[in-house]
């Protein structure tokens, strides 16, 4: 005799309970991951956003005789303690370049000392009571204020937190990525095209394939050692330069691009290849005119993601010397340079408290660029998505 609905339902209850439990557990895991992400972002934003503001102070500059030798002499004695030393150092230089300045005075907003900045932002600082009172007084008069920190985006690294910026690291990143792309993209795509479209399927190509897949999983610092041993020690490429950094990162990005390209090529249906062979295309024409254009969106997406990964890489660059104090923007591919994550790494090791927010600010800029790159990859993929 068959069971009634009631009997079946009674049995099912336990099963339904179990699936409901599983659903809650997985939702809980997702929630936890979301919370961590939220925490990370709010912490970074909370610490990093103040870096985009910097204390400035309005001072009277008296270009007198003494100021030609020591910039501090141009400022009021008490106020001079509150002004960034980078500015004071600039006064004699300016006076040498423009001798007509001698004897004139000027009122200007200038960069305040890092401690003033930290005091205004309510962080730990080293100002004494009198200095604090002076800052409070000046702030009340509107002569000390937090303003948008253009310095952060227009200068390179500095030993003084208030004067340090990310420009040299950003330029270094762009140069390094250009080298990486110029090397890894053509070699990676052509390797994948050969393996996927031309190579016979035998032991040797299978071995190559396995090794490429393994390369993608190798700790990145080993690529740094390889770069040091081959590019710097053997070929004599200048140390710390975007050239050697880009070459090292290209080694790391190659397997990612090869794997992405192979996947993209494989997703082009064979019917297209057959059609092309059928009208008398040679193998290369099939690839160049039909398969590659169809695979291009996938190749681009994979390459962008590979590049984004390389962009966030620090470990291999430490080995090839790209973690360095680079105050000036490097002008060529063979000059010493640093990159954004390496700059963040350097700042994180600085003793001054004011560098904490620089570190977080650098991370925010890096994150913004990476999110932009990944979004581009997603948009590209969506836009050219093709159904067969």
């Amino acid at each position, binding site marked *: 005799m068959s069971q009634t609905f009631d009997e079946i339902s009674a049995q099912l209850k336990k099963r339904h309970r179990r699936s409901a439990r599983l659903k809650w557990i997985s939702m809980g895991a997702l929630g936890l991951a979301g919370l961590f992400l939220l925490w990370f972002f709010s912490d970074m934003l909370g610490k990093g956003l103040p870096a985009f503001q910097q204390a400035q102070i309005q001072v009277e500059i008296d270009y007198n005789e003494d100021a030609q030798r020591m910039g501090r002499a141009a400022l009021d004695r008490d106020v001079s303690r509150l002004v960034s030393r980078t500015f004071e150092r600039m006064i004699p230089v300016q006076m040498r370049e423009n001798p007509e300045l001698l004897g004139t005075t000027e009122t200007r907003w200038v960069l305040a000392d890092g401690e003033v900045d930290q005091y205004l932002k309510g962080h730990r600082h080293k100002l004494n009571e009198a200095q604090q009172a002076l800052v409070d007084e000046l702030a009340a008069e509107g002569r000390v204020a937090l303003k948008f920190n253009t310095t952060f985006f227009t200068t390179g690294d500095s030993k003084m937190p208030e004067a340090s910026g990310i420009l040299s690291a950003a330029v270094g990143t762009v140069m390094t990525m250009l080298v990486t792309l110029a090397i890894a993209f053509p070699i990676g795509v052509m390797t994948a095209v050969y393996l996927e479209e031309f190579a*016979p*399927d035998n032991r040797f190509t299978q071995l190559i394939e396995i090794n490429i897949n393994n390369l993608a999983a190798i700790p990145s610092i080993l690529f740094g050692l390889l770069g040091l041993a081959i590019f710097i020690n053997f070929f004599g490429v200048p140390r710390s330069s975007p050239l050697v950094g880009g070459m090292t990162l290209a080694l790391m990005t190659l397997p990612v691009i090869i794997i992405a390209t192979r996947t993209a090529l494989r997703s082009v249906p064979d*019917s*297209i*290849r*057959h*059609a*092309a*062979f*059928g*009208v*008398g*295309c*040679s193998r290369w*024409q099939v690839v160049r*005119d*039909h398969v590659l254009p*169809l695979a291009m969106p996938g190749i681009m997406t994979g390459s962008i993601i590979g590049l984004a990964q390389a962009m966030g890489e620090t470990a291999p660059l430490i080995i090839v010397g790209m973690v360095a104090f680079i105050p000036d923007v490097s002008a060529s591919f063979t000059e010493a340079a640093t990159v954004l994550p390496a700059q963040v790494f350097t700042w994180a090791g600085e003793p001054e408290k004011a560098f904490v927010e620089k570190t977080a600010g650098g991370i925010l800029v890096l994150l913004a660029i990476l999110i932009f790159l990944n979004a581009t990859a997603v948009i590209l993929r969506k836009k050219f998505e*093709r159904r067969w």
Partner: protein
Amino acid sequence: MNIQAAPRHTSQPTPAVGQPHTRNADACHELSIRVRDLNLWYGESQALKGLNIDLFQKNVTALIGPSGCGKSTFLRCLNRMNDLIPSVRIEGLVEMDGHDVNQVKMDEVALRRRVGMVFQKPNPFPKSIYENIAYAPRMHDLVSRKPEQDELVEKALRDAGLWEEVKDKLHQPGTSLSGGQQQRLCIARAIAVQPDVILMDEPTSALDPISTATIEDLMDRLKEQFTIITVTHNMQQAARVADYTAFFHLGEIVEYNDTKTMFSNPATKKAEDYITGRYG
């Protein structure tokens, strides 16, 4: 020319070459492709066993037989599409215009210029209708100037009976057409390079009856210019469009004859059983 000259094939019937009862007695009976002792292996398993057949110019030859009997494999031997499969080994002679097409020195690209192909599933390039046709002639340097190219595209589309339907949307993607139109586009693409032979691998199996009828009419017209060799699972289609029919079974050609004889008075029991639907 006599197929019985080939050894090892006692069951091979004489093709009705030049016999008065041939359906299109006025058609040309020049030899197009001569096949002798063709054997083909996929790895260890033999898919074609000692085939001998003469295919005639400007006729439609239908290859029929149950699934897996080797008719598509044989078709692909004629333009060396089997080269794309790594494990394939071919022995024997496929001769066209005095050349053995399986010779290493025979360029498969040159061969495919003269032997075009239409596939089972319509597979237009994901490019514009115009570009689908113009691509191959341009690649083979058949056209140099734009007006020439326009002319050739129009002619190919007219020959494929598609011109009236697409002349206003030549720059839309070929994949936007209906299935039947896409298949005619593929036929137009094949004839645009002016081949001698067009191979069709079940060209209508993915199409509805109306589109199928259109393609069949088209084949009837195209055979005035081209040699057509078609694989079909549809017995009526073979009877309707083919001048000659070859019946394949287990990798052998059991019977090859003019279509009328094949369907009215098959020489072998196997072919008769298959045609009457008792098997296969």
